[in-house]
């Protein structure tokens, strides 16, 4: 087991820890905003660590680029998704809006 593999394990464990944090936040936090907040931050960080961990053991340059690209895309995607959901909630909490939980 060389240094890179050990580093990879450490990074992946870190990533797993953050994911765990995100999930605990999702389940335990009292309201939607804080859940959203906890989740997006923790998950993006977790994914970053896992990508880092996999970069440690990857052999070729294109693969590393692809991994980084995946992380960047996930970052863009989930942060904007978080924004959309947050914004949507913010708007729909105003009066005269749909709060129909049975259908949605």
């Amino acid at each position, binding site marked *: 087991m060389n240094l890179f593999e050990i580093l990879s394990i450490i990074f992946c464990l870190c990533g797993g820890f953050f994911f765990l944090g995100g999930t605990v936040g999702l389940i335990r936090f009292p309201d939607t905003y804080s859940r959203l907040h906890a989740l997006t931050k923790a998950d993006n960080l977790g994914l970053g660590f896992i990508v880092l961990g996999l970069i440690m053991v990857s052999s070729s340059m294109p693969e590393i680029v692809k991994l980084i690209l995946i992380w960047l895309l*996930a970052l863009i995607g989930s942060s904007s998704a978080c924004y959309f959901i947050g914004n949507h909630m913010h708007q729909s909490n105003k009066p005269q809006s749909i709060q129909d939980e049975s259908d949605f």
Partner: protein
Amino acid sequence: MNTFYLCMALFLALNILAGLWRVMAGPKPEDRMVAAQLFGSTGVATLLLLSQALDSPYIKNAALVFALLTVMAVLAFVRNTSYGLKQDKKNESF
């Protein structure tokens, strides 16, 4: 080494399973959507780890596509509520 990655993937899959609780409990649709978002990034990570654990590099492309397209469902969700239609009329330009 591969067993470790598989364990990590398993751990993340269990994370998703735990997150399913939020999808079922709700209470608001946004909460469910947030949980789905969790599955997006966790799913990407799981796919990446599996790709490493099973030595099949092409799974990374699945993760890539997944990361790219998950936001579409959220966009559709946001659009298809009264808010989406109300707000849209203010700004018609692209």
